[in-house]
């Protein structure tokens, strides 16, 4: 019959309207600042550097593999030297330009020393584009506890691997 399809369409929308008052499941809105969706364990936004005891003793040994492998080339590392000029296994500068990084996670995969991992922070707005998005070493450093808090399983795996390596 000619008019039936139009009426069925109306029936669908009014059904959604009435049922939305009975089953909360039908309403998918999340009131963002108050309620938040819990991010999954593997969600990745921007890379961070992990340290064990103190922020200036990072796990990173400045081998620059991640800087070479990073597709948009947003990581730049300068190796530290002691007074005699002998290069140390420590980065003097370790900058990641968050405005260039496209959070692909390749640096996390290729890092042999489990020092760079993807964080889950995404509320990183800033007023000034050039300075504030260029994260220096101390802003990138995050403790191992923080890392195991946001990514429990990967932290457990990394712990076993490191213990096995020490033995």
């Amino acid at each position, binding site marked *: 019959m*000619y*008019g*039936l*399809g*139009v009426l*069925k*369409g109306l*029936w*669908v*929308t009014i059904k959604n309207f009435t049922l939305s008052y009975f089953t909360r499941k039908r309403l*998918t809105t999340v009131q963002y600042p108050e309620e938040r*969706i819990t*991010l*999954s*364990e*593997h*969600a*990745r936004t921007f890379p961070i550097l992990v340290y064990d005891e103190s922020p200036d003793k990072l796990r990173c040994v400045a081998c620059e593999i991640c800087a*070479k*492998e*990073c*597709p948009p080339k947003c990581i730049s590392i300068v190796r530290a030297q002691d007074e005699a000029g002998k290069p140390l296994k420590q980065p003097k500068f370790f900058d990641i330009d968050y405005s260039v990084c*496209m*959070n*692909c*996670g*390749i640096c996390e*995969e*290729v890092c*042999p020393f489990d020092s760079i991992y*993807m964080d889950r922070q995404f509320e990183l707005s800033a007023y000034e584009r050039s300075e504030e998005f260029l994260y220096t070493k101390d802003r990138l450093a995050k403790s191992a506890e923080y890392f195991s808090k946001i990514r429990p399983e990967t932290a457990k795996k990394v712990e076993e691997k490191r213990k096995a390596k020490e033995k």
Partner: protein
Amino acid sequence: MNCPYLQNMDQQSTLDTQRLEVSLGPQHPSTHGVFQMDVVLDGEQVIRLKPVMGYLHRNHEKLMENMSWLACMPYTDRLDYFCALANNFSYALAVEKLAGIEVPERAQYLRVIMAELTRLINHIVLVGFLLNDLGAFFTPVLYAFREREKLLDLFEDVTGSRMMCNYFRFGGVKRDVPPDFILRVREIVNQFPKFLDELEELLTHNEILLSRCQNVGILPKALAVNAGITGPVLRASGIPYDIRKIDKYSIYGRFKFRVPVGEAGDVYDRYYVRILEMRESLQILEQAINEIPDGEVISKAGAQAAKMPRTLKVPKGDAYGRTEAPKGELGFYLVSDGSGKPYRYHVRAPSFINLTVLEDMCIGQKVADVIIILGSIDIVLGEVDR
């Protein structure tokens, strides 16, 4: 009509309206991105239509020439940003064909599951935006987005990011799926047909939609083949050409699924063929979940290449890998000169080539139809302009 007065009336027809040159320009609510059409109108009738592209051109292919093979993978997500995993699939296939890397069983199944879930996302979003061009005030789009959120949450758990997944590696996938993955996919597969029935009840037999979409923007069979149109647009014109069935790449040969075919080749057929294709994808997903084996998700060579990308040796030569992306045939033509970087990296983008027939379909139609014809071709400007 033999009365003399009207005879000379016809010669100098005084009633023709003024030709209107309108540019449905880059900033237009329904060109799905920065795409411009210079349209010449006679009243509401379209006389000439010239597409203008290049507003989103990033010279993707030159960029890839100084990236390593693995570093190109995250960029393929940005080609057709609605179906990142389909682009990854095609690029991974091309490189594996070039470098001769095998893919373990479980990874093949995971790839097929991810590709079919992306097809679901692309088709429901397209149906939503096509209805938006038709004027339905955002209701179908929001129903489609309600379902898409569930799928995107699943992608976030598995690949790490909702849209820019970067999940495929040469020789398998980046990481194994979380334990409850199969349960969640099964729950989506059971619940999706109910959503499709509700959408069809709202739309498919709606008289206004029928009269707006039928016999509008007809694409004849011969022109479709000659112009290299692929994907649902081609199948809506009546040619059952589906690369999953022709090439049987990856493990698509093992799954039993049908290929819906329209016959009039107008906007309504393109809309309904996509809905039927979603139902077929659900069949594939059903079979894939039941048969997925355990085992490693990436081959030895693949894992080693992922961990140390420098060690990936791609021999000299060229290869052309193509897959059935939701929008059509997505092909990668790669030339390698043995160094760690691709010498030439060419993307055969389905949206870009499907636009060749836009003018043929729009001549003689009204302005309102031009918008829905463009919407029914389903272009994404990231892929058109590269």
